[in-house]
């Protein structure tokens, strides 16, 4: 898995000469989308998306409501297929394999590409069983191994100290912020390669939000993270790259610093300065 992909394509499909992130030869590509289009019935939600996501980076997806940012990350683990009327065209290469091929099993993909959802969604089970759910799904029955995974995952999500004495209590007894970290720990328990986060802090208070943001910084050492956020400050704080989506298109994709200090596209500038959206 150490194939180095020189970036021949511009990151931005419809805006030329904007990319200053071409010299990325030290980083591996995790995801690459090629001319990705998606329709909900007759409505086109994603239009010719060409993006490249790198290993051990945080990539933020920003844009106004309905711009396709959530749809985009749900396409990366094919959760979008749970909606019956969805049609997809183009290619999504994950570690150089096209995950849109029929032969690519979603169960396999989702083991590598974990997801944290907008609303904390723990199972109505004990904290332990929530974390052990993924490993059990993948056939781990050994109690000792499960114990280890549970502790490691909860530590990874910085919630071990808060819950270690009540692992067998229902996860519904935790606060919203704690629940979201449980969901993150549950995601870590499947030992993913990539973590997708769909507005993970939008239902949380500022302190819980801060904790998640700190965690994201910590986790990017071991994982590649793609985070959808409607909070531009959040994107600016935690991400290395930012993609600005508008009406199903990528308007601009670049280093976060560049996007927030010197955007190439007028629409990006308008959006990040709060003139619309």
């Amino acid at each position: 898995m150490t194939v180095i992909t020189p970036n021949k394509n511009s990151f931005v499909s419809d805006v030329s000469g904007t990319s200053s992130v071409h010299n990325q030869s030290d980083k591996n590509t995790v995801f690459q989308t090629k001319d990705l289009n998606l329709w909900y019935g007759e409505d086109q939600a994603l239009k010719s998306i060409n993006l490249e996501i790198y290993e051990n980076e945080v990539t933020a997806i920003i844009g106004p409501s309905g711009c396709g940012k959530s749809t985009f990350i749900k396409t990366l683990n094919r959760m979008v297929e749970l909606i019956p009327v969805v049609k997809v065209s183009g290619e999504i290469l994950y570690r150089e394999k096209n995950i849109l091929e029929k032969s690519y099993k979603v169960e396999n993909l989702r083991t590598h590409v974990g997801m944290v959802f907008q609303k904390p969604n723990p199972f109505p089970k004990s904290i332990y069983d929530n974390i052990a759910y993924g490993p059990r799904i993948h056939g781990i029955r050994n109690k000792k191994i499960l114990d280890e995974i549970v502790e490691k995952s909860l530590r990874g999500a910085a919630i071990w100290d808060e819950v270690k004495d009540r692992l067998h209590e229902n996860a519904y007894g935790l606060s919203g912020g704690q629940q979201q970290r449980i969901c993150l720990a549950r995601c870590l328990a499947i030992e993913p390669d990539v973590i997708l986060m769909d507005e993970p802090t939008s239902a949380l208070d500022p302190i819980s939000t801060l904790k998640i943001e700190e965690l994201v910084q910590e986790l990017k050492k071991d994982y590649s993270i793609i985070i959808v956020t409607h909070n531009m400050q959040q994107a600016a704080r935690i991400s290395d790259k930012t993609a600005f989506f508008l009406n199903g298109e990528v308007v601009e994709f670049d280093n976060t610093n560049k996007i927030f200090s010197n955007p190439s596209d007028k629409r990006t500038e308008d959006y990040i300065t709060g003139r619309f959206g």
Partner: protein
Amino acid sequence: MKYIDAEQVQKKLGSRLVLNNLAKRLFFLATLVGLVVLVILIYRVVTDSIGWIDFDFLTSKLSTDAERAGIMGAISGTFWLMLVVAPITFILGVGTAIYLEEYAKKGRFQAFIQINISNLAGVPSIVFGLLGLTVFVRGLGMGAVVLAGGLTMALLVLPVVVVSAQEAIRAVPQFLRDASYGMGATKWQTIKNVVLPAALPGILTGVILALSRAIGETAPLVVLGIPALLLPLPDGIFDKFTVMPLQIYYWTIDAALVAEYANLAAATIVVLLVLLFLMNSVAIIIRNKFQKRY
């Protein structure tokens, strides 16, 4: 200028309030009718059965002598019948509900099945009796045994179980399924580990209510030719049997010959009502205990 004249309002207020009061009384009266009928009914059977229900009545076999007659046969028949009906309706009903809610593509085929299940729930029970007579009793040559009765009853209450299980499955929030799929679980793993545990209280409530309907059903068993005058107790699902509502039915008819049979019928009704009351209570307790967890 004002459109609403305070004086006019004051003048009409009286009649508005009278009408308001009238409406309240009218609706209370409507409720009262059902309530009064129920009370009269219960009063009649309870007074008729006083002195007839005792331990001997529950544990004795049938007898032509009203003083010695008991409903042990009918109770054990009911028990065996439920032993057949419960697992069959549970497995078929929940299986159908899972298929319709989780697997079937929303389309014409699914809508067609759905409409048929709803219609099936409205088919008169005696028609199911005829079906059971044709298919199980005669077609498969079972005779009027527990298995034939149980299968007939299972088919009769199946739509109730399917519909309530469907509702329970539909009420499981999508975000729980998403969480499971998001970790690479298959559909079956998701159903088994997430959907069914969350839907189980609702499913059980439906099954219990369906069983309580099956316990009180009489017409299909009459058609199957289930006897009331039966001395030996059933020992298994291939034995002949009778059930409480049938016992009530025949005793009520024979009350023309022996007056005390009316008291026996009343006593059996009380036993049956208590049983139904208990089952419904359990269903309500399960429902309340597990309601609104999300």
